[in-house]
Each structure stands twice: as C-alpha cells, then as structure tokens.
C-alpha cells in the first residue's frame, strides 16, 4: 500500500468517480430523508421542515409501538426457528463426506439466488386454501375417513362431516413461515463456517471423558460455534426486521411490519415526514445490531490474543 501523496494522479482518478456517486446518489438521498423526518406535512403536497422531533414522538404512539413490537416478534421468532433448523443443517453438512459438502452447501444457497418475489409467490401456491398443503391434507383426511368407515366408525364422523382446509395464508403463521423460508440460507452459512473450523478432538475428548452426546452438544459444540451463532443471528434478524415483501404478500391485515407502514406513508397515506422518521428508526436499529456484532467480534479477537 502506498500513500496517496506519492502518486496523486491515479489516486484522484480512482477516488473521484466512486466517491462522487456514493455522495450524490446515496448519501445525499439518505440525508434528504433524515431532514424530511424533522418536517411536517402541510396541505396535500407541501412539507415544512420544522426541526421538531414530532414524527419520532408519533412513532411512540401505542399503535406504532405495537407494530414495532410485532416486527421484533416476527423477526425474533424467524431467527429462533432458523437457528434450530440451521444448526441441524449445518451439522449435517459439516459431518457429511468431504466430497459432498460443497454440493450440499450449494443446494442450501441456491434458492437464495432466485428472486425473492418469485419464492414468495411459490409459497402462496403451496399455502393457499386450494394449494398443495391443503390438497395433501385432504387426501390424508379422505384416507383416514375411509379407514374409519372400513372399521365401522364412519357413522360417527369423528373427523368432521367434511374436510376443512387450513387457513395457512394471509395470517401471522404465513409471514413467519415465509420469513424462515427466505432467511434460512443466511443462518446456515455462518453456522457452517464456525462448525467447519471447529476442532473435532474437543468433541472426542468430551465423549471420552464421559459426557453424553447431549451434554457434549450443549457444553462443547454450542460454545465452540458461538461466533457463528452470533453472526447468523444478526444477519438473519436484521433483514427479517426490515422485510417488506413477505408480510405484504403473505400477511393479513394484522400482520403488518415496520416496512409496510413505511411504504404506506410514502404511497397511499402520503405522509412522507412520518415515513422518513420510521425509516430512520429502522436504520438506527439496524446499525445498532451491526455495531453489536462488530463489538463482540472485536472483543473475541482481543480475548484470544491475550
């Protein structure tokens, strides 16, 4: 690496275009939203910047606090489910034969590369009341009913008079299932990276010294995988919290998340200042989570050096 002073011409040549782009087409737009968040809507289209934190105060209204709480709950639940499933998958990949590991990892990552909108749409086809899950359940129901008739219990209608499709779409269940579906690869990758680095002789030692499989899992494997767990939790939670498409397409009227409220402020409700304040709150939460991760990683690095 050389000092820019030694070679100023190529330095400026490479520094100016990306800096200019980043400033004008990214930082300025963000700054505009920030300024807008201290504004007040007057009339239909005009906004006056008052520099009062009114919009942020309004976000503390129970109505919006509840939406924040719900978003945290959805994102937290998604992260927890992803952690449990992801851990099993990461273990399965780590302990798979070496030649198959790459393929399995690729299989887990590939859906991540297909369009988010299309994956969400695919879930709709599976979940809707005339979709595949319900068709499968109906088959199961008919089969079970047939069996009951066969043993002479058909008259009792133990399973109800007819098949009732499960309401799997347009509710909170659908949103969390959709979020898990979309975010699972985010969790598997860091978990796999941590487990792959793990020295297996620790597990062997633990088993040799008389700890059972369960105790070994909780006192050896989990602590060793902690960096991966922490990374995975943050990089799953953060995008899940800001999800727009999943709650929009799969959720019902009571499963709106922060991003949906922001979208409404900028589109149908047409209250840009309030939407701007909400987006900055979401952004602050994101930065906080990422700073937490950086802080934790830094502490670990220092700890291992000491």
């Amino acid at each position, binding site marked *: 690496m*050389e000092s820019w002073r030694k070679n100023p011409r190529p330095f400026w040549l490479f520094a100016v275009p990306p800096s200019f782009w980043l400033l004008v*087409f990214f930082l300025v737009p963000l700054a505009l939203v920030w300024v807008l968040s201290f504004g007040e809507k007057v009339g239909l289209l005009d906004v006056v910047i008052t520099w009062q934190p009114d919009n942020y105060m309004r976000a503390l209204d129970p109505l919006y606090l509840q939406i924040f709480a719900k978003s945290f709950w959805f994102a937290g639940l998604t992260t927890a489910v992803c952690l449990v499933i992801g851990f099993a998958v990461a273990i*399965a990949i780590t302990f798979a*034969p070496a030649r198959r590991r790459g393929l399995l990892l690729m299989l887990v990552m590939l859906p991540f590369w297909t*369009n988010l*909108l299309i994956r969400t749409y695919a879930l709709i086809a599976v979940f809707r009341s005339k979709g595949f899950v319900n068709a499968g359940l109906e088959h199961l129901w008919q089969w079970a009913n047939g069996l009951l008739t066969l043993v002479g219990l058909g008259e009792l209608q133990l399973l109800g008079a007819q098949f009732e499709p499960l309401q799997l779409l347009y509710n909170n269940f659908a949103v969390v299932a959709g979020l898990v579906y979309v975010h699972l690869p985010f969790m598997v990758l860091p978990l796999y990276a941590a487990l792959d680095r793990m020295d297996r002789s620790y597990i062997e030692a633990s088993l040799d010294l008389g700890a059972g499989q369960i105790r070994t899992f909780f006192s050896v494997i989990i602590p060793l995988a902690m960096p991966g767990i922490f990374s995975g939790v943050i990089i799953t939670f953060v995008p899940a919290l800001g999800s727009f498409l999943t709650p929009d397409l799969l959720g019902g009227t009571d499963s709106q998340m*922060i991003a949906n409220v922001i979208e409404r402020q900028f589109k149908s409700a047409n209250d840009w200042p309030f939407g701007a304040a909400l987006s900055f709150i979401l952004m602050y939460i994101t930065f906080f989570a*990422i700073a937490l991760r950086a802080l934790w990683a830094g502490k670990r690095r220092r700890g291992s050096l000491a």
Partner: protein
Amino acid sequence: MIGAQDRRRVVGPLEYGRRMWVRLSLWATLAFLYAPIVILVAFSFNDSRRNIVWRGFTFKYYEKAWSNDALIEAFTNSLTIALISTLISVILGMMTAVLLWRFRFPGKAPFEGAVSLPIIVPEICMGVAMMTFFADIGWPRDLPWPLNLGAITIAHISFSFPFVAMVVRARLTHFNPELEEAARDLGASQWQSFRDILLPYMRPGLIAGGLLAFTLSLDDFVITFFTSGPETVTFPVKVYSMIRFSVTPEVNAASTALIMITIVLTAIALRLQNRS
C-alpha cells in the same frame, strides 16, 4: 471382529452425518426450500388453469406470457436497466476496490464504511431515500425510452457497485505486487502496468462481480418499486402486480424464465469464482 456389513450399520459417536435425525432434518429442509420452487416450475407446464392436478404437458402459458406485451415490455426494461447498471457498477466497483487496496489516504476508514452502507441499509429505507431524492430534485418523468429508466438505473448502481467492489477486492488481496513492480522496472508506464498486469489479474473478479450486479439488478423489487413510475415498470414490479391480482400459470411461466436466467448466471459466476 466387525464385518463390513456391521460396520455400515453401527454409527460411531462422532459420525453425526450418519445419524437419522441429522439426515432427516437436512432432507426435510431441502424439501422445504425446493418443493415450492419445483412445484412452481412444474405447474408452468401444466395444461390446466385452476387445478392443482396434473393435466398434461403444455407450452401454452409460455406462449401466452410471450405475447403479453406489457410483460415483455417490463422484461425489456429490466434487461436494459440491468445491462447499464452492471456496466457502470463494474467500473465504479473496480475503482473502489483498487483505491482501497492500493492507497493509504486520510478518511479511508469513513470511506470504507460509507461504501459498505448500501449493503447494510434496509432495502425499504434505500427505496424511500431514492424516491425522496428524485422527487426533490424534480427528476423528469416523461423522458423517451430508455432515458426514462434513468432513475431506476441510478438507484440500482448505488446498491450494486459496493458488491462488485467487495468481490474485486477479495480477488486483489491475493495479487503479488512484485508483478507490477517488475513491469514498472522494465519500463512500463503506470497506465500500461495497470492495463496489462492488474486489469487481466482482476478479470475473473470483474466478471463475477458483474454477474452479481446483473442478478441484483434483475431481481430487485423493493427499491425499484419506489423509483418506478407507471411508464417504467420492470419485470419484478409487473410480476408483483400480477400476483396481487391472481395466481395464474402465466405468472409461473414468466417466473420460471427468470429463475432459469438467474441460475445460469449464478452458475457462471460461481465457476469463475472457484477458478480464481
């Protein structure tokens, strides 16, 4: 003595990969991840509009999607945006990567942080920022095609080029600076050594980054949703409005086409990255 047969049956304490519950959870997860996509692709060929029962193979929904002018227009828009955005993102990303790899300069840490911001910031926040920006500066809405796609293209470049920079920078960390020094010693100018040594070395990274930028642009919905107007509909935005309306095999056909494009591009990108 344990025979080969018995050895296969006994699962060692460390052989988690052969435990039933581990295998089961892996296959169940893969089924959960793939079943919806496989069903979507399969039923784009199903000769029936409503039923979820297989009624025979057909291409008619592809023909229908192909003759849907609005859909094709949206697809053309998406490809145009993705091409321009990729081109500019690769140039800007390459510059960022070389800048960060090569130079020490005051304000480097803040610059590095700012470049990674577009990767971190929630999509919805970036979307509304772009919407506010283009509304505030009074970006003209009624330009002739392809100029009317400018706003979306600019937004796409802003979130794509940091990813390109990341990929190219990873490639540059393995570069042996002696190669460039040798070129300079042998009388090459700075420009020549950049063009003949560094640029060829970066090429796999540039291509992989470019493919990444292309996929990101082609796939983006949220940010585009906030920057597109009624005249500038992209493919995902069009599919979104079709989905809101109803679930039809035509959407399945269009989605399948997009999945195929993405898979091919990703496969090329991964292959290039593995080679480098």
